[in-house]
């Protein structure tokens, strides 16, 4: 693929006021890939996603999306450009209906005209959401809320989706369903970054992966190769 990567993160440092959370982070994501970022709690995975989303800004280095620098942009601008985050726990709006949650997902101007089309697509991925479309989000089960969160993200017409701990706390059956949907999403041409603690599963689904530890990237490569790596096996598979 001689094409430019869709996302380029170059040597970024990120601070929470005076506390440094990320050191000299660099990585790329190519269009259509599923890239996993793996690390334990507190390693900086969510910080990284929040920086890409524009909630935090790097104090050094830069982030480029489709060739344009986005390091200093506001979150709503970044959504307009085509990057959408499905945050940890989904964070659906509890006192709004399933349908309203989806509608608000298409808030940015690029997505509004495609709203009804996208709703149909979402219902194809997750028929259960259509059954529950007039229910308040807080009445859904954990897995259904996660489906809703992913769907809400899809409504924004993203080119790149960021998933923060998509499978956290969910049953294996539900996790399978979500990953199946993720594959369907990828087949529509959407690129994905997965942040996961579930190393085994994410290495199975991803093309490439980066291992992050205490704010540093310590290892990277094709997912298949990393599965065999001694370091990864010892650290994460208890081998």
């Amino acid at each position, binding site marked *: 693929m001689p094409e430019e990567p869709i996302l380029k993160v170059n040597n970024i440092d990120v601070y929470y006021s005076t506390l440094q959370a990320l050191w000299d982070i660099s990585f790329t994501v190519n269009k259509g890939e599923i890239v996993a970022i793996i690390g334990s709690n507190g390693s900086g995975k969510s910080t990284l996603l929040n920086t890409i989303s524009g909630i935090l800004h790097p104090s050094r280095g830069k982030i480029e999306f489709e060739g344009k620098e986005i390091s200093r942009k506001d979150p709503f601008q970044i959504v307009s450009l085509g990057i959408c985050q499905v*945050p940890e726990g989904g964070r659906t*709006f509890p006192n709004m209906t399933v349908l309203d949650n989806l509608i608000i997902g298409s808030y940015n101007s690029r997505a509004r005209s495609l709203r009804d089309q996208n709703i149909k697509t979402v219902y194809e991925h997750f028929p259960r959401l259509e059954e529950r479309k007039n229910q308040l989000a807080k009445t859904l089960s954990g897995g259904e809320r996660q489906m809703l969160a992913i769907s809400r993200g899809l409504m924004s017409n993203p080119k790149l989706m960021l998933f923060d701990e998509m499978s956290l706390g969910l049953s294996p059956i539900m996790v399978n369903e979500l990953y199946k949907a993720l594959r369907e999403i990828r087949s529509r041409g959407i690129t994905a970054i997965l942040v996961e603690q579930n190393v085994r599963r994410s290495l199975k689904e991803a093309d490439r992966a980066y291992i992050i530890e205490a704010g540093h990237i310590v290892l990277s490569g094709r997912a298949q190769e990393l599965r065999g790596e001694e370091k990864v096996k010892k650290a994460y598979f208890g081998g």
Partner: protein
Amino acid sequence: MDIFSDLGTPIVMGILLGGLYSLIALGLSIVFGVMKLINVAHGDLVILSSYIGFAFLSRFGVDPIISLVIGIPVLFGIGYFLQTFLLNRAFKISMEAPLIIAFGVSIVFQNAFQMAWSPMSRGLTTSYALNSFNLGGIHVPLIYLLDFVVAILVMLFLREFLRRTYLGKAINAASQDRGAAHLMGINTNRVYAFAFGLAMIFAAIAGVFLGLTFPFTPASGPSYLIIAFGVIVLGGMGNMLGTFIGGVIMGLAQTMGGYFLNATAQMLVAYVIVLIIMTVRPQGIFGR
């Protein structure tokens, strides 16, 4: 049993008055529901609208309701400005800072009113404000009915706006989870400013009808703030039906208190009811 024969009047008056009270409280409820801020300048902003209506009436002979054409944009602009340049920055300082700033705004307004219009009591005296009509043997001031109808219309408008428009849903979303709303591409700063401006539009309408119904002075703001606060505590936050019911309860408490006890006890009865609800069901009758 004789004491109950005239009960009709205070009951009807109380319900109609409740409409006005819920209209006054609506702006306060929006700001609290969306931004979790108790705008202690709310009463004064309502009275600002009363004074603007007074200025148009006394200077140009223009009916105060017509003067809302000017009054509404003025108050919307003040609200948008307050939120964007004062309150927004205050939020970043601390949780209490916006409260203190609003308090300062309140003091500024009260003094400005006194300088511009003297401490004298004012009223918006139009021909229809003095009329009353007959409802099955009960004499009801026309203005009370007008207040009630306007309050219902405004609340219906707000409900449909929140339900059907993108901006309405965005306000709803931002009030439930600001961070998630941010991640959905909502410019939460702008949405907050708009919500505040919307609250000011309702304050503007409330101020004019308040001025048509009761006399007011530069210091009237805080009194109506307390009533609005009572309405919201009774009805529960962020719930339009709750705000309406809360207003009716406050209105009824006042008129029934005045009927069974005396004029001085009116507000006391209302406040006691607020205290009881706060103790027994602090989230309000419809709150969550």
